[in-house]
Structures are given as C-alpha cells and as structure tokens.
C-alpha cells in the first residue's frame, strides 16, 4: 500500500494549483463565488471559464494529445478533481461534451464528425446536452418513445425529452431516438447529434425543489437531422449509449471529494454555532453522529481508492463504480439531513439569514437529486446485485 504521490503527480498538482490561482475568476478564491443569475450572463460566464481552461490546457486533460488533451493518467485526473473541488471551481458548461460526447466520437465517430465537433467541444465554442430520459422512460431508458423517421434523406424527429441538462445553453444534443419498432427492447434505438438551433426544438426549464433550474424539458416537433448526424449504426444506438457511459472513468471523483468538503463544512458549523454559549459539537449526540458520518464518508473515499487501484492494475474500471455512486449519493443525503437536525429550529432559516452557511439549506434540498439522477439508488442496487454479486435478473429486465 502506498498513499503518496509521485514527483510527477505532485508537479502536476502544483502546476494546476498555480494556474488556478492566476486564472480563476476575479475574487473567486476569496469566496466571491456567486454566478450571474441572468441566464445569458450565466451562460457567458461559464463559456468564458471553459475558454480559459482550454487556453491553459486544462479543459480536457484525459484526452489524447492529438486532440488537444494531456494524455493524463488516472491519478492525474484524480489530482485534477481534488484541486477543482478544493477551489470550488465554476461548473464546466461543456461537461457532457468533454467527458462523454467527444470521447465517444473519438472511439466510434466518423472522420467528419470528429473534425466537425471535437475541437469545438474543447474550446467551448459548441456546448452539448444529453437527451436520454423521457416522461415515461426514467429508470428504464429502453422505453423511450421519441421517434426519428426517414423522409427524403432527412430524419424527422418527434417526441419529448426530460431532465436534459444544459439544454437551455446547448448548441447540440446527444439524442436517443427510436427508429424502428422492434422485439428486443434495446434494438431499434438510434443516436443523433442533433442541432439544437432549429425551429423544431423547444426548451422549457424544469424548476427543481431547491429552486434551481439545471434541467429542461425538450419538445421535439418535426426536428430535423441528417444521416451525417447518426452515431454508429442506425438501430444500434443502445451500444453507443453504453460506450458513452463507460467513458467517465474518473466520474465519481468530484463527488467523493465534494462530499468530504461538505462534511468538513458541517463540522466547522458544529464547532462555530453555539446555543446558550456551548458549541453544537459539545453535544454528545452531535459528536457521535458526526463521528459516524466521518467514518462512512471516509470509508466511501477509501472504497473509491481501492477501486482506482483495481482499475490501475486491470487497465479498465469494473462495475464497482455503481457501488461508489450509491454510497456517495446516499451519504450526501444523510449528511445534510443530520446538518439540518442539529441546527435546531434556526435551521429553517435560509440564505442570508441562515444560522451558519448561506448555502446549507439549499444543499440539503439539492441532495435529494443525488439518489435519483444518474440512476436511482434502487437501480444501482439492482446493478450491484446482478453485475457484482451475480444474483438473478430482476422482474421485467
């Protein structure tokens, strides 16, 4: 066992750290981390940030050098996430493009697709969204009903997508459609690289329970795509989707480190907030609960390290990532639930009036998305039971 970094990895970290100190938005490191509320300004702010990352060579470190990446090792990726979480960097507006679409195109895109999209993804000139879920296809993506029908060399697309992240700012969408009625439920699905800037595409934001609007409904009414927009083969889109999902090899890292940071923030609160002159943390129930959370959150991080070790030794990740996802998302919910409880009645206060952290209550509400988005905890448990433990397949699968 060895938890140290090599000199090369430490050099990588300090290079990144130095770059961040120079290039993060004005006042960011001093805690002025408010993003513009206006949708256009918000989008521009994040596009500028991605442009800046691109120019520094930090937008897509895991990509091959030939495409403008750094050929970063898995450990370098982890260092990257640690540092990004540490400074609470602005979100990457083209996350989907960089971490999912482009690597998939590198693997199975046509020469034209590679030329047309990959560089624009890297520079942030072109922002991507993903269009998988539908009102009737949430956990069960094979149930999608959006159709693409070929008419005179064009594909005419109709249907509705939901939970389409970044759709309101996106130029293109990685879109799952049904092109044939078929027996096998994973057959007849085709992936398009849909141009979002056309009349047939309408985007309506979804208001979340925490008040944020990070996702959208997308209504497709005779939206148009061409053969050149198809990824892989027509009718074989399920394979493309699986390939895309496997491209996030360091996927959970940011969440692991974020959870740890959030935990430390809750501890700070328990030390700082006093009731009748006594810090919350001096209450044995607060101490006990936090020690338990510390242990399990640290355990989740250590699990992740074991899985990375496994990946490094085997050259590819195993199904253990669903284990990490499940643990981290459930712990995020538990952490903020506990943080709410210990604040007492003053915990109902939000934003500027909040007892300690103006964001704590909002993070509590946001935490409910963690065990739903990206595969519900129920689906994760099925995956773990079936893929890791080899238990029999569930009903209807």
């Amino acid at each position, binding site marked *: 066992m060895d938890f140290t970094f090599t000199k090369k990895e430490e050099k990588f970290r300090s290079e990144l750290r130095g770059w961040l100190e120079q290039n993060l938005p004005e006042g960011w490191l001093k805690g002025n981390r408010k993003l513009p509320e206006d949708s256009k300004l918000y989008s521009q702010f994040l596009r500028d940030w991605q442009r800046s990352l691109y120019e520094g060579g930090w937008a897509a470190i895991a990509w091959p050098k030939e495409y403008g990446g750094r050929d970063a090792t898995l450990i370098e990726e982890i260092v990257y996430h640690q540092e990004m979480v540490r400074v609470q960097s602005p979100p990457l507006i083209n996350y989907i493009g960089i971490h999912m679409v482009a690597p998939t195109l590198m693997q199975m895109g046509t020469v034209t697709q590679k030329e047309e999209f990959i560089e624009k993804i890297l520079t942030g000139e072109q922002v991507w969204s993903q269009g998988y879920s539908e009102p009737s296809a949430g956990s069960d993506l094979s149930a999608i009903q959006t159709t693409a029908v070929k008419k005179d060399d064009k594909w005419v697309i109709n249907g509705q997508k939901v939970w389409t992240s970044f759709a309101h700012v996106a130029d293109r969408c990685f879109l799952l459609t049904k092109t044939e009625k078929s027996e096998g439920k994973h057959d007849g699905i085709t992936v398009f690289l849909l141009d979002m800037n056309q009349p047939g595409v309408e985007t309506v934001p979804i*208001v979340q329970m925490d008040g944020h609007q990070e996702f959208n409904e997308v209504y497709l009414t005779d939206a148009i795509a061409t053969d050149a927009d198809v990824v892989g083969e027509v009718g074989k889109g399920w394979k493309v989707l699986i390939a895309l999902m496997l491209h996030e090899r360091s996927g959970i890292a940011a969440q692991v480190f974020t959870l740890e940071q959030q935990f430390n923030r809750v501890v700070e609160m328990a030390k700082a907030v006093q009731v*009748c002159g006594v810090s919350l943390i001096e209450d044995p129930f607060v101490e006990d609960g936090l020690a338990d959370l510390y242990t399990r959150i640290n355990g989740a991080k250590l699990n992740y390290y074991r899985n990375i070790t496994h990946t490094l030794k085997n050259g590819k990740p195993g199904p253990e990532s669903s284990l990490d996802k499940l643990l981290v998302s459930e712990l995020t919910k538990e952490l903020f639930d506990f943080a709410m409880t210990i604040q007492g009645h003053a915990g109902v206060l939000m934003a500027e009036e909040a007892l300690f952290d103006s964001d704590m209550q909002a993070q509590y509400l946001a935490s409910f998305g963690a065990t739903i988005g990206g595969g519900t905890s129920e689906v994760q448990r099925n995956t773990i039971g079936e893929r890791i433990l080899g238990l029999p397949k569930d009903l209807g699968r």
Partner: protein
Amino acid sequence: MDFALNEEQELFRTAIRKYMTDLGKTDIARSVIDGKLEVVTRVTAGFAEMGISAIPISEEQDGLGLGALDLVPVFEETGRVLLPGIQLETIALAVPLINNYGTQVQKSNLLSKVAIGESTISVAWYEQNRGLTPKSFSTIAGKTTSGYAVTGTKTLVAVLGNPDFFITGAQTAEGKSLFLIKASDVASRKILSSIDETQQIAQLTFDQAPAELLGELGEATQMLDDALLHFNAALCSSMVGGMDELVHTTTEYAKIRVQFNQPIGRFQAVKHGIVNMKLDLETARSLSYYAAWAVENDTADKQTAVHSARSFISKAYIKAAADSIQLHGGIGFTEELDVQLYLKRARYYENYFGSVRDSRKKTAHSLGWHTKSTKQTPVPVF
C-alpha cells in the same frame, strides 16, 4: 374499550376535508408562496364560520367548550393540505395559555374574538442562539405605572396573517414571565426567509412595548410547558395528516407509474418502501390520538403521551416526505409536485418548540426512569 374518533368527530373531519378541497387543497399553500397572503385571512374567516376556532374556547367566551380530541380531525385535515397560517399557535397554544392563566378580563377581551375569527395570536419566545427552553431571557420587562414595558428582540416568530397579539417571554426580577403585547406595539418586524415558504416567520423588536402580564410572574416555563402539551398534541395531528396524504399519493403513483413494463409498485423496493411509510403512519396516528385523549382527559400520563408522540412523529414525517420524493423519482424532485412542500413543512416542524432529543428526554423523565421510586406496572393500563 374504544380507540377511535367518534362519529361526530369523523363527520366533522368530512366537513373540513370538503372545505379544504373547495379551497383547492395545497393551492392555499402555493398562494402564500406566490405572495398572495390574503388567502390566509379568508381561511381564518372560514374557520370561524365552521366553528373551528371556537372549539377549545369555553361557552362563556362564545366558544364550544370542546376538547383536544375534537381538534384531531381539524388539524389532520389542515395538515393534509399544508394549510398555511398560525391556527396551531392561536388555537392550540395561545388559547390554552389564556384559558388556564389569563384573568377573567383577558379571557373576555381575547378569547371571544378568537372564537369568531376576529383575532389571531402568535407566540414570540425564541431568541437568537438560545435554546428553546432558555435559562434566561435577554428580553426584559420593566414595571410601569399601567403595567409592564418589554424591550428586546425575538426571532422565528410565526406571523402569517398578521396576528393581533403576541404572547412573549421576558425576564423580570421575579424570573421568566409571560406577557401579552399588541401587534401594533411592535417596534419593528423583519420577515425572515424560511425553508418552508408556505409559512412566514419574522424577527420582532420590542422597544419599551406596553405589555400585560399573563399568569404569575416567574412562572413562564411551567405555564409554557403545560400549554405546549396542547400544542404538541395538535401539531402531531397536523403532521399525521401530512403523512396520510404522502402515503396516499405515493401509493397511487406506484400503481400507475410504469417502468420496465411493470407498475413500479410491483417492485419490492418500492412496495416495501411504501409499506414502511404506512407502518409509521399507523404508529403516528395511534400515538397522536392517544396524546390528544390524554390531554383532553388530563390523565396522569399526559406528559409521556404527548412527548413520546412528538418524538416519533417529527422524525417519521420527515422520513415519509423524503422517501416519497425518492419513490416518485425525477418528478418527485421538481417544484411541480407537492411532495417537496411536505418535506419542507416537516423540516419546519422538526425542532419547533423542541427537538426529538428533547421530547425523548422528557418522555424518559415523565416515565420516572431517573427516580429510584417509580415502578412500572407489570400490566399495561388500558
């Protein structure tokens, strides 16, 4: 042996539920979120018309002279639709305080107005960074020629619908005491932003506010402890109403939502999840009924009955709402569905006038666990 609401109480429930349905159920709560606070005044009038605000007020003060059990259907049904406002504070906290400790004049002046819906009263007890049972107040009351003058700042005060009076706690030479202060005598009021946007809470500043003593000097803690039994019993009913609605809507959703070609209620993760909510609901309802019965009949075990009920239900309500969000999946995370409103309300009530830990501590003490003398009877009383 009869452990159920009686026929009249169930009929009353039906009437209130119909009224709430006519008002559009959670539409009232959503109106408050949208800033249309006038709905609350309409509800207060409706409550008076239906005789709800007269329930715990004696006939001398134009009330109905009924008890805690008659409030059970009321607050279950208002809780079911997340009715915003300070009905609980007025009917189940201020009224018992005035009823038990007020002078004849105070009763006449205040209670009949509450009964006919012309007045609501809130309670301003909490001070910043103090516990819910503070050892002392920084708010102080000084004697004046005509009564008292109170100076200090209270926070987390429920103010939706603009109550006419506040019952507040202040320090006097004789100890912690309760006072009545007219809303018009509040020096300043600052609305605070709350996780439950269907409620409105404020910080109130008193600056030599004219105040009338309520009850005896130095007796604030004991008076409030006693009145909080009424309040907590009613609060439990309100939370049970919310839980009942959550179980109902989650069950119906699980029957119609199809994934993997199955209604999701067929999957044991979903089915057993809802069953666990149902188990908690049944226990919550039993405990809340018994708490109200104990308060109404002033039984020897009323402390145990109320605090144990509160300790369970505060937690179970949050869990029911949180689990309901999860079982609804993506749509449960949106502002469109009501389930998130139940979560926020449950959170709002979690530590209101006491935490789960506080309630458990009080349960233990009321059971005599820390005294050598008390002995459990081997056969349950029933």
